């Protein structure tokens, strides 16, 4: 059903990656993505690919879920590959009009496509093994140094917005279903007609939904005030993120992978 989509990305399981601290996971993900783009020759890139696939195995998330994400991004992947193929210098193999296909171009395209694919896999591994709430918390923590440059409120507000969005998306989706049904019961035709008719037909749904969202926002603001919220000033957290042995393991893993890529880059 429609309402289930929002928790879609998280896949509950008990792997090393699930247990690890979300902050560490985000940092390591960024690190690995950087190194995937540093990987300069086919050996280091192949090593990176093998490493990423072992991470996917460790995550204990069914591989078909990863493929599902990949499918969604496939058009972008192909587009990037094609652009890379015909762009840039090199000895042309075939050429027509202003395009010329070069050997360098082909290898660039393969490199780029592979890098993006690995990037998608590794970020999926993060979202499949971390709940949206943990992600929000981790991002807030990681961005907290920004408070020293006067951005304290910005970080807090962003985190608060994400928290509220996660909480209310299912509620609003449910409400959209209700309003849709209510207008259908009044004979609204949502299924037929041309594009303009269909857009027009959405008005009876969008207006009540918008009004309801405003009403909810207003009530929520009052409720938050009643719970002594004053913009995050002096706020503490119940959940303390603590590092565990899992984090040591995955950090060592990531360091090994990065090291391997560098070594292969230099040696070969």
């Amino acid at each position, binding site marked *: 059903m429609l*309402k289930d989509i929002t*928790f879609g990305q998280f896949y509950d399981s008990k792997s090393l990656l699930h247990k690890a601290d979300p902050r560490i996971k985000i940092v390591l993900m960024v690190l690995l993505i950087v190194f995937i783009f540093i990987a300069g020759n086919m050996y280091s890139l192949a090593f990176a690919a093998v490493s990423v696939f072992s991470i996917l195995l460790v995550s204990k998330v069914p591989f078909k879920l990863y493929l599902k994400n990949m499918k969604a991004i496939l058009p972008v992947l192909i587009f990037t590959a094609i652009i890379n193929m015909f762009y840039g210098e090199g000895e042309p193999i075939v050429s027509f009009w202003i395009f010329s296909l070069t050997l360098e171009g082909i290898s660039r395209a393969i490199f780029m496509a592979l890098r993006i694919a690995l990037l998608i896999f590794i970020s999926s591994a993060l979202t499949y093994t971390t*709940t*949206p*709430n943990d992600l929000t918390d981790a991002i807030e923590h990681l961005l907290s140094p920004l408070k020293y440059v006067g951005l304290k409120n910005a970080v807090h507000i962003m985190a608060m917005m994400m*928290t*509220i969005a*996660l*909480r209310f998306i*299912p*509620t609003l989706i*449910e409400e959209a279903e209700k309003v849709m049904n209510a207008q259908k019961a009044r004979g609204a035709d949502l299924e037929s007609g041309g594009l303009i008719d269909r857009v027009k037909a959405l008005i009876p749904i969008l207006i009540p939904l918008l009004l309801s969202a405003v*009403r*909810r926002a207003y*009530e*929520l603001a*009052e*409720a*938050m*005030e*009643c*719970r*002594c*919220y*004053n913009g995050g000033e*002096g*706020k*503490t*957290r*119940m*959940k*303390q993120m603590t590092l565990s042995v899992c984090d040591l393991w995955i950090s060592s893993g990531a360091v090994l992978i990065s090291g391997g890529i560098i070594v292969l880059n230099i040696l070969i």
Partner: protein
Amino acid sequence: MKMDNIIEIKNLVYEYTEEDETFVAVKNVNLDIKKGSFTVILGHNGSGKSTLAKLMNGLNKPSSGKVLVDGIDTADEEKELEVKRRVGLVFQNPDNQLIASVVEEDVAFGPENLGLEPKIIRQRVDDALKAVGMYEFRKSTPHRLSGGQKQRIAIAGIIAMEPECLVLDEPTAMLDPKGRAEIIETLKRLNSEKGITVVLITHFMEEAESADRVIVMNDGEIIDDGTPKEIFKKVEKLKQVGLDVPQTTELLYELQKNGFDISTDVISIEDTALKISAVLNSEE
């Protein structure tokens, strides 16, 4: 300020302006709420009872007159949080007061805002969830729970701040009978076991049955104040202000009109039956 009052309201007036027109929602209300008491405020929609609720914790500020919470003036901007921590407000729509998508994180929101130690927050969250009977759902996500369960989470979110008084603005209006019963039972327990003062605003007459005190509001004023039995005796007066009486009272009242020698000062089903049988037997 007497020590045994948690809330003292003196000559309270609340006005608001909408499209250049001024409305008076609360007119000269005087009211003390005793610590540890269970008070029910009855009134139809628009009687000013919701506005009064928001005045009790400083969400609304008096236009004139005073509201004192534990001796603190709610108009004092400096003590804003002090007041809100002492008097917690629960609203009608449970969906619109839950902030986080995990139950325990939502309950932690209040104590976190108070800047408590993580360990203490954990303790309070667990205690609050146990007090409303929702501890086993601490890891659930609110949108999967029933209305009554969500409302109990909202109550837990307030009591985790350890307030002295809980003000609830029609907390059962959107619930089914089961959810309604859950909430009333929870409130009674919090009142009797934890000694939390409860002010329950409602238009379900049955919910007033076991209160210590019932206050009737109409048109921004308090028009009656007494024990449930005293209040519900006045069937005609209540109907005049758009309220109802419990069906038991109505039955006794109708019997009285039909010449039964019976008083209308009981509310529970058992007592009503006893009273009727006594009358029937005495006339044998």
